[in-house]
């Protein structure tokens, strides 16, 4: 058939049209995929805010545990616990991470340097429950559940994040700074601490923020290290409460009061995590603008 209508769907012009259609269809699908990917984010945030805000008030944040028969109390003990666990973990992870990053930047192509970069990647991919098991075998078997054990587990999870971000920042710092310092006769360590580190400071800070964001919500490694607690405690050799552990306990509880409290804790954690992530990104953007 050779009617004008038929000619539209056969021949070179038709193949051209078909290719254009496929093009628009597939590109449209990728846009759809992006929208679809953002739906869970919006949904989770909406639910956390909607369900969490009912239980979130000043009393909730400042009281400690009370049984549900007495109203359910608050999460102050968990807030303090998380602060201590994460703070201690940071004290352990940040120095080691920064120093290891210096090593990697100083020996980028040696076998050991490559091994350490690889080791950092592996460490960041380890299931967090395996880290908890490791710390249990090393610390808890002898001494019982403690905040120390929990902090160590979290420190192991923070280490790769700190190392990686410090390393990337150091690589961005101009070599000329380092060469000038060494040329003036300063020893290596002085160059690093007085010249390179301040220049890379924003990287270190953002690395710390991202690492803290990562571990503030970690539950699995704390299950058999810090164990969790209903009491306010600052003792490092005893079990310690934490926000994610309390969330888990309250979510898998039949009481509606506890469920509402779980959502409120989720709101607190998500707010903290978002704040840290967005803050780190903003600092990085400000930094790159400053360097131009």
């Amino acid at each position, binding site marked *: 058939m050779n009617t004008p209508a038929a000619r539209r769907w056969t021949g070179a012009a038709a193949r051209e049209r078909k290719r254009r259609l496929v093009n628009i269809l597939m590109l449209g699908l990728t846009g759809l995929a992006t929208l679809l990917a953002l739906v869970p984010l919006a949904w989770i945030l909406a639910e956390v805010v909607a369900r969490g805000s009912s239980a979130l008030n000043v009393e909730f944040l400042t009281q400690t545990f009370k049984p549900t028969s007495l109203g359910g109390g608050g999460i102050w003990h968990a807030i303090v616990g998380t602060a201590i666990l994460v703070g201690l973990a940071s004290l352990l992870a940040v120095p080691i991470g920064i120093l290891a990053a210096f090593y990697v930047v100083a020996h980028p192509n040696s076998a050991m340097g490559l091994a350490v970069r690889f080791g950092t990647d592996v460490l960041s991919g380890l299931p967090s429950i395996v880290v908890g098991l490791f710390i249990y075998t090393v610390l808890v078997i002898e001494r019982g559940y403690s905040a120390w054990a929990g902090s160590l587990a979290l420190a192991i999870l923070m280490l790769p994040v700190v190392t990686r971000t410090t390393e990337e920042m150091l690589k961005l710092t101009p070599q000329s700074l380092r060469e000038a310092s060494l040329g003036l006769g300063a020893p290596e360590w002085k160059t690093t601490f007085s010249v390179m580190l301040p220049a890379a400071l924003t990287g270190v800070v953002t690395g710390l923020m991202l690492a803290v964001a990562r571990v503030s919500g970690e539950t699995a490694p704390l299950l058999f290290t810090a164990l969790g607690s209903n009491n306010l405690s600052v003792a490092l050799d005893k079990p310690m409460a934490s926000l*994610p552990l309390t969330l888990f306990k309250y979510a898998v509880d039949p009481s509606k009061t506890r469920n509402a409290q779980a959502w409120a804790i989720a709101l607190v954690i998500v707010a903290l995590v978002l704040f840290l992530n967005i803050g780190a990104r903003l600092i990085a953007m400000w930094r790159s603008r400053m360097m131009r």
Partner: protein
Amino acid sequence: MISTQPRATRPASSPVVRALQHGDIPYRGVIALSALAILGLVVGVGVMLWIYSEPTRVAAGWSFVVETEWNPVGEVFGAAPFILGTLNTSLVALIVAFPLGLGVAIFLAELCPIRLRALLGFMVELLAAIPSVVYGAWGIFVFIPAFVQPLGDFLMNKFGNPSRFPFLPIFQGPFFGASTLAAGLILAVMILPTISAISRDVLLAVPRAQREAALALGSTRWETIWQVVLPYGLSGILGGIILGLGRALGETMAVTMVIGNVSQISASLLSPGYSMASVIANEWGESRTPMYASALIEIGLLLFVTSLLLNIVARLLVWSVSRRNPDAGGGRA
């Protein structure tokens, strides 16, 4: 330190003392120790898990991996239900997350206006920042009732009738919400940012010349992407998928809260299941006998070794793409 005294009158001190005063050797020692600490941790985790899993390894050997019964009271420890459960949930997660993640990566790398790219990319990455336990709570109270339950009911009613579809056991009922399907779908949301971020970096690393050549020859945008850009970055994208798989294998809290915690092997996605990480989380607290504890540690050892292998393969794949184009960023995670 540059000395201003003439050489002849400088006090004689040993080279060692001078080196220490200079500070470089302690400095180099300290940073080397820190670097070693990282390597030491990776090795240490493996060693401790190996040592403490000895009772079951010696007693059962490889049969631990294929034994299908898990009966702590009767001291029968078989890891097969958990290995299969982990594989099933991860597979479901990959099947859902891969096309979506790749689609997002293509959109962000090729089509998106540059001003939006950073913002949208950041928002997708925020999905990875939400803690697992929050995903779990959302799963129990929101996602399962609102999405998984209707979806599962639909699949069960349409395709799950054993007499009409005897060779399709994956959608057979009964279905109660907590299931492999629920865990797989939530995992898909959690690993999507990993796949999309790495794929996006890989696609951005493909040289412009490749695209321009294809377009100059008359390809449409899509044909360029599908026939030129994607094949070029294929190994890197594969690396991203493997990293996503690695993350899915180790997820604990979200899976534990929605999978049903039943150590039975079932061909249906709609029945409850159990994963390796979940059984450790649930049963570790009470593993009374040495064999029980050692069996759980051996499961942890399997997780460790698997994630190690996956990481190695994935990093090699991703590095291979960035090496072809050294001035583009690779190796992100």
